[in-house]
């Protein structure tokens, strides 16, 4: 049995009853600790994403290799404190907050709220397979005027970027 917390809406929720895996972006965009701020900012801008997972030198095959999640605000802070030459390992970044690929969006929303983060790393077992952003959830809220059943379920995850 899953030890994930279960959240029950007290009424009809604008967040549809679909799984994280249906709306996440995949695969996760990662960088190693030696990547500099210019490189990270360039990747974010080109891919139109707002977070990058920092890994150790062994890639991102297992969540144990994820060190932090760098957001655009982390980059802004780093520019002001250290300058643009700083590397990922030295950028103060947020924690790696994860969610299972089969978790519901309402669980994901509560995970974001609880950790005060806008991005979750999505796991299939121990393997990071995508990223779920608060904008991904907002998109489903925008779409709730459209029945969120067969049309949405099982859709192929978007490529991140």
């Amino acid at each position, binding site marked *: 049995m899953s030890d994930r917390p279960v*959240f029950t809406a*007290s009424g009809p*929720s*604008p*967040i549809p009853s679909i799984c994280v895996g249906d709306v996440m972006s995949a695969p996760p965009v990662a960088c190693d600790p030696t990547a500099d*701020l*210019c490189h990270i*900012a*360039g990747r*974010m*801008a080109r891919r*139109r994403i*707002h977070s990058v997972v920092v890994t150790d030198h062994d890639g991102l095959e297992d969540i144990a290799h994820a060190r932090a999640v760098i*957001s*655009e*605000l982390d*980059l*802004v*802070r780093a*520019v*002001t*404190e250290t*300058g*643009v*030459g700083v590397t990922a390992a030295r950028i103060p970044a947020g924690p790696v907050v994860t969610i299972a690929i089969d978790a519901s969006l*309402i669980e994901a*929303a*509560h995970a*974001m*709220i609880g950790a*005060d983060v*806008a991005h979750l790393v999505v796991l299939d077992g121990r393997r990071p397979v995508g990223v779920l*952003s*608060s*904008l991904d*959830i*907002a*998109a489903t*809220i*925008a779409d*709730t*005027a459209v029945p969120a059943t067969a049309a949405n379920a099982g859709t192929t995850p978007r490529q991140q970027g």
Partner: protein
Amino acid sequence: MRSPLITCDPTTDLQEVATMMVRDHVHCIVVDGSTHDHAVDPTEWAFVTDLDVVRGTATATRKHRAGDVASGRAVVVAATQDLNDVAAILADNESSHAIVVDDGEPVGMLSGLDLVTILAGKARLS
């Protein structure tokens, strides 16, 4: 900088705010609380982010509107302001976005990513 500024009224439903964010692919919208019968007043602006929308809808016991969940006063910078200063202002305010004003008129929104990309590009060229 993204121009023009994307704004909504404080009474805008969060589902409509989410629709605007997705349509324009933005993470932040300006909630304009001014009454529109006087000059532009930046103190009446606030930001509503995509995380605010998620927070407002996931925890709602009633239907929230943009003005209910907007997270604090908007950060405003001048169009002529030095970008390093703008970065410091964003960091101090823990904000990823700033409204850019020129002669008191809002002309667009600058994101932290826009800013860092420009500063990083300048550093590469120098």
